[in-house]
């Protein structure tokens, strides 16, 4: 390789390496803000500000969904396998919302330790299976233990 070209090659590689390092440092410094939501464990640890707009995400604990008889009000618990978080919501849930599936809620953390949600989004998983295959599989819930959200 011609020495001039070799020098230009090194300059190009340096440009890519240094700009990547700069971006890596910035994203590392902002790593907490890069998360779209807080996990229930962050609520348990007291890292989440009270009565501010925040998002929480986790697996809907199977058996925890309780609906009111006379209104749209619904309560459920989110888990990440380490802690549980109580959520209260009063609007229509998305179609894919289900027990044992992940969900992301936007709302405020109330002094009593539960989240009053304005919006609930279903976070579907990366698995695609035909209905007959899904039926034959023993564990249908994708995140029942909350280990993966």
């Amino acid at each position, binding site marked *: 390789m011609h020495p001039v070209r070799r020098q*230009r090659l090194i300059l190009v590689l340096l*440009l890519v390496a240094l700009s990547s390092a700069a971006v890596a440092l910035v994203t590392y410094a902002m790593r907490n803000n890069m*998360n*779209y939501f807080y996990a229930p464990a962050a609520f348990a640890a007291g890292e989440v500000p009270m009565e501010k707009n925040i998002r929480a995400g986790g697996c809907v604990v199977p058996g925890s969904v309780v609906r009111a008889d006379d209104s749209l009000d619904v309560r459920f618990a989110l888990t990440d396998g380490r802690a549980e978080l109580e959520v209260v919501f009063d609007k229509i849930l*998305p179609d894919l919302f289900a027990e044992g599936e992940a969900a992301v809620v936007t709302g405020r953390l109330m002094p009593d330790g539960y989240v009053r949600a304005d919006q609930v*989004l279903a976070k579907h*998983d*990366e*698995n695609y299976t035909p209905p*007959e295959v899904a039926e034959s599989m023993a564990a249908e819930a994708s995140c029942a233990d909350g280990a993966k959200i």
Partner: protein
Amino acid sequence: MAWQWFHRLGSPRWFYQKTSAWMPWLALASLLLIGAGSIWGLGFAPEDAKQGNSYRIIYIHVPAAFLALAGYYIMAISGAIGLIWKMKLSFVVMRAAAPIGAVLTFIALFTGAVWGKPTWGTYWVWDARITSMLILLFLYIGVIALSRAFSREQVADKACALLALVGTVNIPIIYKSVDWWFTLHQPATIKFTEKSSIDPSMFYPLLTMVIGFYCLYAWTLIAHTREKILQREWRTSWVQQLMGGESATESKAG
């Protein structure tokens, strides 16, 4: 001495003549693969147990997103080769890749929004995956804008190549964003190191679409490059001869 073949590759005339024979084959392959993949994926693949039929947009969303990322590397590496070897053709490929990548990124974002409404319950969220994909769109648009911002073509080539190279850091961020941070977007379905989490009956049509999109990308990139070659080289005798020979039927040079 060993680099001679590489420099011959950089000749626009050589490229134009060599690729003439490829074009119909690439067009035919992309037409057949995308046609077969669409019919297979939309009509014959089973529906998803949880999402029903709405998951079928994956057959457009995933191939478009794949090529949007791969196309960025093609653009940036072409720019790097142009900077290092001062190769005209390489810069032409870089410029041709920018609008194609922008369109593919837009398709990925748009189909993602359409898919998000029935599944997540929203068209758009500012999570790490979607935001970094939007930055990719802006990078592509930035390269297009820079390529037209200078009156001297060589200055524009260099500026575009530098922006494209600095932007490469975004590609691994897009790819790994769903693993590094909490996002609403689910992690990757097609994995290269372990078993993919999609049923084979749904995966094979997707694979057909991905290969079809690669063919279509190659066809579009080469066609766009050939057009730009004619524009840049219109004064040279070989282009004049080509245009003269094909007389008034040839409107590409304009």
